[in-house]
């Protein structure tokens, strides 16, 4: 809100570099410590937690989360938010699902491309509303969250796609293995690495950070913020479209409530991972740890037989704790630099 916060955001502010760097690392160390404590506590009560099957299960469960959290991270870096990711996944999954049911002979690559294209269009709709219409991202995507979800119902008239209605090729897409690792996990890691490299080493990636930390300054530096913001929402749509195809592949179904409420998981993973909602701050390794933490919590709550109904409350509490800690840390930095 103030200039001071903007300065905090940009890592190039010079003076405080090493200290800020330490704090941002400290955060990741903090999450790792929290995960480790959780793992030890759960393993003491339920040794089967550390079984290779259970660990693979956790990774499989967070793979799609990681993929979409990458998109959410890019959006939040520009000071925005994309609440419609879950509905994009739901709508694309439904459309791809029914297309595959009607044309089972289509190759897998076709459904992937179809998912990406449909996601891109839905994402660009968000982008247009936000950039040209100047609608705040939270309102725009809250609107498209219900628009796209309503379209799912309108499209399918309440029906859904079952496992037997899908061709075999799409089902093996996520379950096949590469060097013993399930494809889904490989894809998640690949997307995470690509996003990391993209944000760190490409001009567009750096511009995303620049627009998020100070739109006015970035405009003076020759970046067009509106263009960057538009691209980010299209990217978010594309990644959600990919996630939709993987969702069909993993769960072998497309339902009207596919990915309902999933947007909250992606925001939580990003925010726990240290992506600041005031834009410009956040790293991919942090988000990966955030997603891992969520996965471990969900898995361990089930293992130690706490009602799954408390999971949502735990998740909400985590968001609040994460943003409060961020605020307290940044307050302290401001004080030490005065």
């Amino acid at each position, binding site marked *: 809100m103030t200039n001071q916060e903007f300065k905090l955001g940009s890592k190039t502010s010079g003076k405080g570099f090493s200290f800020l760097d330490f704090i941002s690392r400290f955060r990741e160390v903090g999450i790792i410590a929290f995960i480790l404590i959780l793992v030890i506590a759960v393993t003491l009560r339920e040794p089967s937690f550390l079984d290779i099957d259970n660990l693979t299960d956790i990774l499989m469960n967070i793979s799609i989360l990681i993929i979409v959290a990458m998109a959410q991270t890019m959006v939040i870096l520009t000071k925005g*938010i994309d609440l419609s990711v879950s509905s994009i996944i739901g709508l694309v999954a439904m*459309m791809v699902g*029914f*297309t595959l*049911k*009607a044309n089972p002979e289509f190759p897998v690559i076709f459904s992937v491309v179809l998912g990406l294209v*449909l996601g891109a*269009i*839905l994402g*660009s*709709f968000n982008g*247009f*509303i936000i950039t*040209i*219409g*100047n*609608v*705040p991202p*939270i*309102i*725009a995507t*809250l*609107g*498209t*969250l*219900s*628009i796209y*979800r*309503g*379209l*799912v*119902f*309108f*499209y*399918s*008239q*309440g*029906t859904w796609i079952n496992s037997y209605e899908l061709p075999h090729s799409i089902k093996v897409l996520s379950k096949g293995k590469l060097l013993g690792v399930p494809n889904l996990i490989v894809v998640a890691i690949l997307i995470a690495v690509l996003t990391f490299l993209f944000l760190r080493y490409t001009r567009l990636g750096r511009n995303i950070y620049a627009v998020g930390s100070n739109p006015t300054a970035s405009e003076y530096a020759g970046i067009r913020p509106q263009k960057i913001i538009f691209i980010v929402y299209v990217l978010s749509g594309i990644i959600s479209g990919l996630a939709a195809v993987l969702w069909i592949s993993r769960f072998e179904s497309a339902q*009207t409530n596919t990915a309902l409420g999933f947007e*909250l998981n992606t*925001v*939580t993973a990003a*925010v726990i991972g240290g992506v600041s*909602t*005031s834009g410009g701050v956040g790293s991919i390794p942090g988000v990966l740890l955030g997603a891992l933490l969520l996965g471990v919590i969900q898995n361990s709550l089930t293992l130690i037989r706490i*009602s799954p*109904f*408390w*999971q*949502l*409350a*735990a*998740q*909400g*509490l985590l*968001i*609040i704790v994460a*943003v*409060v800690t961020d*605020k307290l840390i940044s307050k302290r930095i401001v004080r030490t630099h005065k």
Partner: protein
Amino acid sequence: MTSQTESPKLGASSISEHAPRRSLIDLLKNWELLLFVLIVGVVLVNSNLSPYFLNAQNLSRTSSDFMEIGLMMLPMVFIVITGNIDLSVASNMGMSASFMGLLHNMGVNIWLAALAGLALGTLGGVLNGYLISKVKLPSLVVTLGTYAFFRGIAYGFLGDQAARNYPSAFTFLGQGRVGDSLIPVSAAIFIGMAIIFGLVLHCTKFGRQLYAIGNNENAARYSGVPIGKIKFLIFVLSGLISAFAGLVLAARFGSTRPDNGTGLELAVITATVLGGVDINGGKGTMYGAILSLLLIGLLRFGMGLLNIQSQVQSTVIGLLLIISIFLPHIGQQIAQSKTSRFRWKTLLIVLGVLVIFAAFIAFFIWSRIPVLQDIYG
């Protein structure tokens, strides 16, 4: 010259000697009038489409369906005018009602349980208010967190259970009518509260301070407006009223489930913004918001009579939300562009967008054909 040729396109009654900005202000001033015209239009169209639309019994029943949204909208108008937002209202109503249901299931007196529900909802508002005014976190993030947190607590309380068998003295709150008239009790409560909220907003110092915060928070601070206190107060108020709306909903259904009211925050925010309350704060009126509530209510009622699924109805509400912010801004942009230099580029962009979305809609319809064939043969 250019402004003369362009102003008629705006559709607003502007005089060309004045800058186009004037006509925009006129347009915004007439926002309430526009809503009123829309309401009349919806009533006319619907009463032509369905003979059951203008039925006093039906209208009375449907009006009680919107009282929870209306109640939550009142403090939301305050909050949005200060430039903040509360996404947690619907979750808060779920949490409070579930707490009441839990206590009721345990055999606690219903009024005591209702009081406890109100207290918990207020506490939720206190949490929001504290984090926003004291820790100085953005309301958007805080209430996104409590949106999940409160709903999670609601599920934690009741799980997959429901609370029911409320005494009729309690369900009267949601199902009863005032005396022998057709006015639902909840609607009477809403009207009373709307008058109070409207008077507070438009006729008191507190109301003017809300606008001051929304227009320029720093300027308001330097002129002595107790910003922290006011923000805290309105979020606590929002918690209390959401909890009360939760009770009304429980009374109307005669039962409580933890997912009660899921997604209602969208309807509440839509009613607020469609009513002409600027999402960036500082502008808006209470009667505009009430008119838009009426419009949304009539639209939903009409769509319900036409057997349109409720999820599809929320698509229409979502579109309304976006259009109500989108259109004024586009109008502003057209009014401000004085030269015709950008025309070609704009035209190309518009055409490109149209082609892309037309392709999407075409695919949507084409791939849906087998879906419909499966269902209807």
